[in-house]
């Protein structure tokens, strides 16, 4: 932790992430107009520029953008956690099984991951999102399906080396069942790099979520999702620049925060790790 806090960039990342998490957690308390993020409208105050009442101005339906940006943090954090969680649930056991058993099982799982990895994650998420239909939950599934192979490959590499370690050999010699070896002995000893990777991926996941919503494949109105807010506000960029600027800033800071924090974590927890190019 000390090493993490000593690095000013990592510290900045940590501060941003903490602020984001607090905003997400305390949105109902901090938001001056919580109803504006929960389906309420206020057409009499359309395109109100930022002032003491509406700190970030209002949108085309008179809703307070600050309140919506705060609630948007909840959506981004929650969706990001669930999407990465789902990707981990899919990817980690498969990687552990492939790395532990090797042979045909390994070949099969790795070739499947190769198919998924042959597409850029965003493009794959767009394709899956388009197939499943536009909704926030489908976006989550699309992101998880685009991300799981990275974790499979990562954990498979770790498992391949751990399976030769004496404590695994001992368990095998003692007659422990193979799947128990995977989940009790291999996984706990291979999970650290995955945690680092997942924290680094969080920013990309938030960005992908915003991209899908911007393209109309993710959250639907009136959800205060940042990408969707940019989509609906882009028409008014010239006349009401605040409409798109603040959700854009929120995405920018979130991605920046998680990337800085992820870099710091990697240095602390996984100094030998090689940065993955997405």
């Amino acid at each position, binding site marked *: 932790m000390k090493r993490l806090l000593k690095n000013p960039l990592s510290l900045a990342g940590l501060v941003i992430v903490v602020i984001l998490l607090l905003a997400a957690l305390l949105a109902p308390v901090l938001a001056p107009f919580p109803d504006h993020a929960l389906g309420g409208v206020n057409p009499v105050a359309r395109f109100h520029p930022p002032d003491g009442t509406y*700190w970030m101005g209002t949108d085309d339906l008179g809703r307070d953008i*600050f309140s919506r940006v705060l609630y948007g943090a909840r959506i981004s954090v929650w969706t990001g956690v669930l999407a990465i969680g789902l990707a981990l649930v899919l990817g980690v056991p498969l990687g552990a099984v492939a790395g532990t058993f090797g042979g045909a099982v390994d070949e099969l799982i790795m070739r499947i991951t190769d198919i998924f990895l042959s597409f850029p994650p965003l493009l794959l998420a767009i394709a899956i999102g388009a197939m499943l239909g536009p909704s926030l939950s489908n976006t989550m599934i699309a992101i998880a399906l685009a991300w799981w192979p990275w974790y499979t490959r990562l954990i498979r590499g770790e498992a391949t080396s751990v399976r030769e370690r004496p404590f695994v050999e001992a368990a095998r010699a003692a007659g422990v069942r193979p799947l128990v070896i995977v989940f009790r002995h291999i996984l706990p000893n291979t999970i650290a790099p995955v945690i680092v990777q997942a924290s680094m991926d969080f920013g990309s996941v938030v960005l992908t979520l915003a991209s899908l919503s911007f393209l*109309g494949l993710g959250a*639907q109105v009136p959800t205060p999702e940042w990408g969707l807010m940019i989509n*609906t506000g882009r028409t008014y960029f010239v*006349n009401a620049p605040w409409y798109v600027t603040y959700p854009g800033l929120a995405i920018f800071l979130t991605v920046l925060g998680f990337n800085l924090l992820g870099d710091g974590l990697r240095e602390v927890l996984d100094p030998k790790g090689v940065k993955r190019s997405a």
Partner: protein
Amino acid sequence: MNHRSIMAAVLLPLSLLLAAGCAPKSSSTPPPAQSGPQVGVYVNSSDVVIFWDPSDSFSNEIIAMHNLYETLLRYNPATDKFEPILAESYAHSTDAKTWTFTLRKGVKFHGSNKEMTAEDVKKSIERTMTRGKGAAFIWDAVDKIEVKDPTTVVFHLKYAAPLDLIAASSYGAFVYDVDYAESKGGETWFGQGNDAGTGPYTVESWKKGEDLVLNKFDGYRKGWAGKHFDKVVFKAVTEPATRQQVVNAGEADFVNMMPYDMLKGYENQPELAVRNAKSFENLFALINTKKITNPKVREALALAFPYDAAVNSVAQGYATQSRGIVPDGMWGHAASVPQRKTDTARAIALMAEAGAKDLKVTITYSSGDDAQRQIVELWVAELKKIGVTAEPKGMTWEAQLDLGKAKDPGQRQDIFLMYWWPDVTTPHSWHQSMFHSEKDVSFNLGYYSNPAYDAIIDDAVKLAGTDRAKAAARYAEADQLLYNDAVAIPIYDIQYARVVKKSLKGYVDNPSYPHVVFWYDVYRE
């Protein structure tokens, strides 16, 4: 300082900086002086050409095609009169089943330079009927077309129909050189951006995704004396903000369909004007009568609709609340049908009477259409007040239509938002397309089926050929039935609002030809 004040202190300066730096300029830049050929520029919000074949045309391309091709007549709804275009005159039998058109002489086709004859009219309409694409259905009443002599063509109908309106249709009624087009390759040749019409302009250049440029046709029947544009350029600029930049730079003579929120900024500018015009286009919501079967629930949904906010906040007053399904100004508009007003208390009472609890509805609308999206969001908020949870789905028009026609009726939407404007200027276009019983779903996306209603409009369409007043009365009856059954929510009749250069003279909007500028009739001063 509490936490809110601290945040305000951080955010306010940033906001003010943004507002100051990005605020729109208050006046437009003067257009550059033009020397040489006069070039008119039309900016559209989407691709100008979808179909090139004049028989198949059924989309945006009419804004160019009415300058490349001509019809026998042109309808003026303001005067309820027909302007002779390729026909000099016409007459019909008392039973409205035989229509005789006398053609203009000296009309030449582009490309072949051949003079138009009655045979060409017959071949054009027959090719449209045979292909059966686009708006070919408008000729359904035609039994056969007879050529009496080179300047006389007779239409024999299976049943009485207003063939003058049909011949003046904005879609599917173009006369062109079929022989020449077929000798060049027909549909394929058309698809490469060629034309074979008689209009004042001919295609100079076109590539998919690029500008369409028309050049004047030297052999045009009216000649080129006087003030006219030599060339016309059609540009597709899909992003509203970019369209705004194009207008501000003075690069467009005519800009179609700017978002309502941008229009106010052009109302008091020296070089530009916002031109409002009545349209025959309206926005409405079709309620799925197969899922929401109780008329009380449908009525409650209609009473929860935010009519005032839709007209005043969303359309910024560039629309008027609809009365009935046929827009005001069209013949057949039902002035006797009441307008609903938002009445949340009554809606709640109706929901209780119907025993409807925890109702969930999906509303589909065209993604990218800000007005539709804003209306849906306003409505969702109102529906929440009456205990209805609405799930809006912004979709492309094609996806929306596919969902509406899904084989499994259970997958279809509950409410479908859409615009409609007529092909032939008749109320039948709305009544038949959206509400007549259908075996296979076409545009009846509320799936309404009422034999009494069908009988009324089947009768009205036959009367339209002989007695328009009686037909209009029947259509009004049909409209009242739609109101009573609450099968649709007519939202607003659109006013077309275009940003036009003040130097563009002679432009008259004709709602029967939506978004069309007849460029021969306008000039720059």
